[in-house]
């Protein structure tokens, strides 16, 4: 019985980041990469995965060290841990593909100040066991990737007439260049927030 209850709550720990507490659509955290690097589905997907990786690794380390780090220096130590994994990710992406590194560029280093990661370290990993922190990081990371992908896909389809660089509209499609530019990020985010909020209020009513 008790193990059953435990199982339900761990699944919940994982699921909450994907939907109920989605970092982008519900908590509206980490807006800088959300708006800046979602001009194509590929960039959005890569950025989401990079952030998820940093989130996972920093959650693990913060959770491991939670009884060792004094309260007064906790924020400083979180930033140090996050910055380390961002640097590691930066090297890894360079080694995977020069092209990808070129298009993500400055935004990889900006993962350091993504408030999503710091908020999970402070609000969750520093108070929970390693296992739960991993689940939380996976849920939140995948939720973030999913949200970024939603934005990137819409912007690439409308702004470039393609998805993952494969054209989907017939020849002669007049693309909306504004969707690829920064302004398009705001439009798309607003539209998605509208849809998600609509769905969630309808669910709450019924």
């Amino acid at each position, binding site marked *: 019985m008790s193990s059953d209850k435990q199982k339900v709550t761990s699944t919940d720990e994982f699921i909450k980041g994907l939907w109920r507490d989605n970092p982008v659509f519900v908590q509206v955290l980490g807006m800088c990469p959300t708006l800046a690097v979602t001009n194509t589905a590929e960039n959005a997907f890569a950025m989401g995965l990079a952030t998820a990786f940093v989130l996972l690794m920093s959650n693990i380390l913060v959770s491991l060290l939670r009884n060792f780090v004094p309260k007064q*220096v906790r924020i400083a130590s979180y930033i*140090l841990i996050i910055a380390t994994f961002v*640097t590691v990710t930066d090297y890894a992406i*360079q080694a995977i*593909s020069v092209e990808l590194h070129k298009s993500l560029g400055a935004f990889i280093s900006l993962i350091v100040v993504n408030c999503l990661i710091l908020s999970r370290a402070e609000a969750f990993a520093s108070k929970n066991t390693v296992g739960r922190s991993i689940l939380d990081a996976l849920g939140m990371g995948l939720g973030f990737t999913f949200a970024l992908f939603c934005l990137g896909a819409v912007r690439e389809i409308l*702004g470039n007439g393609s998805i993952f660089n494969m054209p989907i509209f017939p020849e002669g499609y007049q693309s909306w260049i504004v969707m*690829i*530019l920064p302004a398009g990020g705001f439009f798309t985010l607003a539209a998605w927030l509208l849809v998600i909020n609509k769905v969630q209020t309808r669910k709450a009513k019924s």
Partner: protein
Amino acid sequence: MSEASNIEMQNPANSKKMLLAMVGIGIISAFLIVMSFELTLPRVTRLKAEALEKAIFEVLPGTVRTQAYGVNTNGELIELAEGDKPEITLYAGYTSEGNLVGYAIEASGQGYADIIRILYGYDPAKQTIIGFQVLESKETPGLGDKIAKDERFQNNFNALDVSISKDGQLRNKVITVKQGQKQHEWEIDGITGATISSRAVGNIIGESTSNVVPVLHEYFKKESNE
């Protein structure tokens, strides 16, 4: 009052703990960063070299072997040794029979967003530019980055005139004109919507060719006379 004394009581024990925590995390971080840098370095260097090699083959069609050269401050062509950093770097491309295809020349200059780095191919026999590639640019996606993608713009560089006059200088400096107003062989047909970026490319090539092409032309004449 009680709070102040509380802090005083806690502090001596805690500062040692704080120091230990920060130094400990610092050491772990340093170790992780150095390890990942060392692990990825060989692959990153190889990928960058491959990307450059690919660009050279693009701008000099038919090339199978390349040789790096540099132009030093005196305007002389020198063979590059490992680790040299000359004023201008360029690569000679040869066919499988060992004939010279042309030179791929690196150049850079200010674009709209940041420095644009390009590579262009020069054929000394025809005295024209025969290829063009953007190596690095942060131009606006959808607008300025057309300099790397727009086919009509790329076609400018299939035969761009950079012939040398009798006094050993360029006859006409390469320049970008407004879209659809190209009249001469040394003009680059610009892009509407990427005016600044396409002009920047014209300036970079114009600047670079007037420095490098006379040197290469001289060198080529000497070589073919021998």
